[in-house]
């Protein structure tokens, strides 16, 4: 089977990383399936409790009060206990048609709170940071017995891009591409720089504020000639959606790749989190748009697809002094796709009483994220369970692959 080598134009239209899928898992093929997997990494620690709120937990209102879901804003009902953030109507629709699953109170084995180390563990698949410079997704590919090898001509199509996230890095060949125009600096990065300057270099702060002020004026008066310097909700949504749509277009092709990975930044909501109509709502809305775009572009292939959205850890159960949340532990993982046995929230709920919180501050993890990922890799891609424990997620022998995630299995 010859690979589709993307044209330069196609490469320039999207963002993210795709595997060159030069072979299909034998066993899946034998079953007559053609599975797709899209991994979306959210960098910055998504506040799982604000994305999927335990509105019926008796201790929930005291933690987030009126600002959280379930107060003035009911959220979109999932089951008798949880509600989905109203910024995600597409995920809600998929949930209701059994094409979305949420896993709550889930975490990797990492228990510190550093973004870099947390992302390292999330993406490397190891139990501790600094252990590997390859990702579990890449190693998963390597364990699959090739049905047909890539021939020499296709080798030109493989290039590891400079911005490949860790989850896909490794010996298995990877196609990666970057959009022609990288997204404008996120508001978050800009604010962090401004904050630093305001505390330590006023001249730089003034210079930066001036330029930002000008950009806001330009945006307000609709001057769109030059791309707005700091992206508003429209731009964030557009970027997430375009990235997911591009990935989906590749995955949909009969001769195209089958595994992909994207990374979205911006989830580190320490201040003014805005879960209902602020920053986090915007981000969740953009993620919702991305899932919908993937569904739309995959078309018939959506039936064979799983999109899995993961993040390095969660956030504190309580709001902090600046209307935000700090780094926490357990969070959510979100699955979407026609191949799922969906319409469920899977959670061994630990409760939210102070005694039940991890270190008195975070949602306690009761499920290992690797169980979810192993379950997907085993049942969707038919990757051997022993290989999952030995090579893909080393030292995870005691973590059993989660069952019944997929519809066909």
């Amino acid at each position, binding site marked *: 089977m010859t690979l589709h080598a993307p044209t330069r134009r196609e490469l320039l239209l999207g963002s993210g990383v795709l595997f060159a899928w030069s072979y299909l898992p034998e066993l899946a093929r034998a079953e007559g399936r053609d599975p797709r997997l899209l991994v979306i990494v959210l*960098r*910055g*620690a998504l506040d799982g409790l604000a994305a999927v709120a335990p509105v019926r937990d008796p201790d929930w209102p005291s933690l987030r009060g009126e600002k959280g879901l379930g107060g003035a804003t009911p959220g979109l009902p999932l089951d008798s206990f949880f509600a989905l953030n109203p910024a995600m109507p597409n995920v809600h629709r998929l949930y209701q048609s059994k094409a979305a699953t949420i896993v709550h109170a889930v975490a990797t084995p990492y228990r510190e709170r*550093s*973004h*870099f180390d947390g*992302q390292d563990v999330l993406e490397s698949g190891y139990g501790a940071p600094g252990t590997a*410079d390859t990702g579990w997704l890449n190693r998963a590919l390597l364990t699959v017995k090739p049905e047909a090898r890539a021939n020499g001509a296709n080798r030109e199509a493989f290039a590891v891009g*400079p*911005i*490949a996230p*860790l989850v896909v*890095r490794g010996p298995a060949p990877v196609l990666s591409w*970057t959009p022609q125009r*990288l997204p*404008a*600096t*996120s508001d*978050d*990065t*800009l604010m*962090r*720089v401004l*904050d*630093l*300057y305001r*505390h*330590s*270099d006023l*001249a*730089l702060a003034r*210079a*930066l504020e001036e*330029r*930002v002020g000008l*950009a806001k004026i330009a945006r307000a008066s609709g001057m769109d000639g030059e791309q707005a*310097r700091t992206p508003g909700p429209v731009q964030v949504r557009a970027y997430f959606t375009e990235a997911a749509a591009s990935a989906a277009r590749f995955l949909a092709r009969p001769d195209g790749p089958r595994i992909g990975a994207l990374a979205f*930044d*911006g*989830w*580190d909501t320490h201040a003014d989190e805005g879960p209902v109509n602020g920053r986090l709502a915007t981000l969740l809305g953009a993620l919702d748009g991305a899932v919908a775009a993937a569904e739309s572009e995959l078309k018939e292939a959506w039936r064979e697809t799983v999109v899995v959205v993961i993040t390095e850890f969660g956030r504190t159960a309580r709001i902090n002094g600046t209307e935000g949340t700090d780094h926490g532990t357990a969070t959510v993982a979100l699955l979407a796709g026609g191949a799922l046995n969906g319409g469920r929230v899977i959670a061994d709920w630990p409760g939210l009483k102070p005694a039940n919180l991890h270190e008195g501050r975070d949602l306690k993890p009761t499920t290992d994220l690797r169980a979810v990922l192993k379950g997907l890799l085993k049942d969707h891609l038919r990757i051997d369970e022993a290989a999952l424990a030995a090579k893909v997620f080393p030292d995870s022998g005691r973590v059993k692959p989660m069952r019944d995630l997929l519809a066909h299995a």
Partner: protein
Amino acid sequence: MARDPKYEAALALHRFGLGPRPGSIGAIASDPRGALLAELDRADAGHSVEPALATSAANARAVFAFRQEQRAVRQAQRMARETDMSANSQAEAKPPQGATPPRPNPGPGVPQRIYLDEARARIHGALQPDIGFPERLVWFWSNHFCVSADKGNVRGTCGAYEREAIRAHVLGRFRDMLLAVESHPAMLVYLDNARSIGPDSVAGVRQKRGLNENLAREILELHTVGVRTVYTQTDVTSFANVLTGWTVVPMRQESARAGEFEFNPRMHQPGAQTVIGKSYPDNGRAQGQAVLFDLARHPATAKHIATKLARHFVADEPPGSLVEKLTKRFMQTDGNLKEVTKALVSAPEAWEAPRNKLKRPGEWIIAALRASGAATPDIGPVMQAHNLLGEPLWRPPAPKGYSDDSGPWFDGIAQRLDIANQFARRFPPDADPRQLFEETVAPLASNETRQAVTRAESRPQALALLLMTPEFQRR
């Protein structure tokens, strides 16, 4: 405040060098001053890493040949079109006679290709030195004696100009650099002296074309004694007369020396000239050389150069005592630039001055590349970054060169943020922001800076923040 023992080493790399690479602070921590001086003493200090680049004259000939070729192509196309039209005007269509005109070369033309090759050599060269002090000096002098690639055929010769006229003399004598610069074809074209004709010269009498004062003025105003000091308009005119005949061997002569400097006596204004109170007899080319040498040893020149050096390296308003020291050294050593440079590094004022100067775009870009450990980055994005930040390589808007004051460069701070984001994505995948922080700015950094970098949301964000910290932006 107890200073980190590596403070001086970090300061040396940011203020006098091209920026730290991983490990470089530690490597010079025991004696930063000594390390700087040692770099000056190297036999290859200031040399280009790429010896195989063509000479300025060879480049000029290549540019000329390219332009001829383009002209021929355009002419052939024009003739083909005319043949076409006359053929179509007849009843039956006839295919055009004559050879099919060759298609013009796709891609960048020869001048641009030369320019990019030279840029590549310079950028890659800047990534190699341990500290990069001689290279900073090259950049300083190249800006002091600037030419612009936007003029005439200078695009094809500006890179060679820097190698031939600047690099060779950066640690030599000022007067030798001055002579090399003012007789270099790139400068003679840039400041119009190549076409300057003495009104009473053989050519002047015949062609009724005349004097161009540009080079003479800029030598006085910018290169040597400095504006509003010791010269008058009359001096400018006299000096311009002295410099007539300093020109470039024309291309049309098709000699092997086309594109090189020549003194053309037929263009030279005859007679003695008085410049700044001294009369110079007319002995052809030697007349101009004599004026230049006198300018080189003028006290006003010493002060001007001392001020510029101090302003570039140390502070927008340099301490008077520092300028005085450098001026004295310049005079004492008859313009020995190595000695003046050593005096700069040995002066306590140079180290005690607060880190207020903003890195110029080119300096900041190279520092970012060095921090990332890049060896041979793509030249395209690097040039683009220079352009976006207002310091396109070898293309200053005026003979004054790019500003050495920090003020004008603050405007580009927001663009630096965008570029930092893009650069952050080009760091190697295993780049650890916390470690890079230690290796580049930690000894200089405030607690706020440390926290900002280590608490970033993701690795790419941390790296972008690192490049934007005040400690990385200033020197």
